[in-house]
């Protein structure tokens, strides 16, 4: 007996909170896949810590979405009982871990956006979102620092680490632009001051990324066409596989607790 997917009454605010929660949950889940497999014990712990921070952010945002939706859904139902097309995360965060360089570059590209994003969101007119932003900003600041230090060491390390880091930059680059594109539902919230316009962070992101890649002796690809669709539920093939692992228990044994 499999659990059926839920329906969500997506007002713009619910949709927004779910999208941000999905970013955090999916990236946190990806990092959890490293647990026990990282190149060194110290980094195993570091990646798990970052993953736990992100899952904590996801829980706060899902909780807020549930409160606003007020339709009997909760964080577990959002996480375990929505299908791929109902997930609204950025394509960047669902990309597979690949090698360590790919995981670090993915984290760096995301954190270089999330850190200034949450800092700006502390000024939201919505007190719940402002409080979530204040907690998330401190965590994201560390994620950015940690991933940037690794980018520099991988890029400016051995020939092999440099080649792997450069390959990761190029593979992930087309997925970095989506974060700055607000969807239609978000525009109304931006006008009301509930959320900030992500487009306004593009320059900060580009400056951070260019500086770190330069120090890492890595080439910054030119800004060009970017992949998009995650916010609308159009995902790469990787998300379905990720969700099948994340959701299998609740799908097979609905309501199971431990």
């Amino acid at each position, binding site marked *: 007996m499999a659990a059926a997917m839920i329906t969500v009454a997506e007002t713009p605010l619910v949709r927004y909170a779910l999208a941000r929660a999905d970013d955090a949950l999916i990236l946190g889940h990806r990092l959890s896949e490293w647990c026990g497999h990282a*190149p*060194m014990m*110290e980094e195993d712990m570091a990646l798990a810590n970052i993953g736990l921070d992100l899952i904590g952010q996801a829980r706060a945002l899902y909780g807020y979405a549930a409160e606003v939706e007020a339709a009997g859904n909760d964080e577990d139902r959002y996480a375990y009982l929505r299908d791929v097309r109902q997930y609204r995360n950025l394509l960047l965060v669902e990309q597979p871990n690949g090698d*360590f360089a790919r995981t670090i570059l993915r984290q760096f590209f995301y954190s270089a956006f999330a850190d200034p994003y949450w800092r700006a969101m502390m000024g939201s007119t919505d007190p719940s979102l402002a409080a979530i932003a204040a907690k998330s900003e401190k965590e994201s600041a560390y994620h950015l620092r*940690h991933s940037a230090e690794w980018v520099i*060491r991988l890029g400016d390390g051995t020939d092999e680490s440099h080649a792997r880091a450069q390959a990761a930059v190029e593979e992930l680059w087309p997925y970095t632009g989506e974060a700055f594109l607000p969807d239609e539902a978000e525009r109304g919230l931006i006008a009301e001051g509930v959320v900030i316009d992500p487009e306004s962070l593009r320059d900060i992101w580009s400056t951070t990324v260019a500086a770190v890649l330069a120090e890492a002796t890595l080439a910054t690809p030119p800004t060009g066409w970017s992949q998009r669709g995650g916010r609308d539920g159009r995902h790469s093939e990787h998300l379905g596989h990720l969700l099948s692992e994340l959701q299998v228990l609740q799908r097979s044994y609905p309501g199971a607790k431990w």
Partner: protein
Amino acid sequence: MTTQNFPLWEVFIRSRNGLAHKHVGSLHAADPTMALQAARDLYTRRGEGLSIWVVPSNAIIASDPADKGMMFEPAASKIYRHPTFYDVPDEIGHM
């Protein structure tokens, strides 16, 4: 990647203002910056710290366990160095 070539670092955490940094363990890291971050991730997960020191393990000069007798036994017979050796007259009260 291997940690074989990564130097070992000793980690000291100060848990509260006014207390001393206390040795909590060691870790492998490539350089001081990464050692500090790894110390944060390994040893302050449960809110243990306000301040972290990392020190290259090879910077620590340690006493030789074989010198234990020479180094430490002479102190064992000098019980008069402990304040409890002395009787405090009742009239003094609490010191």
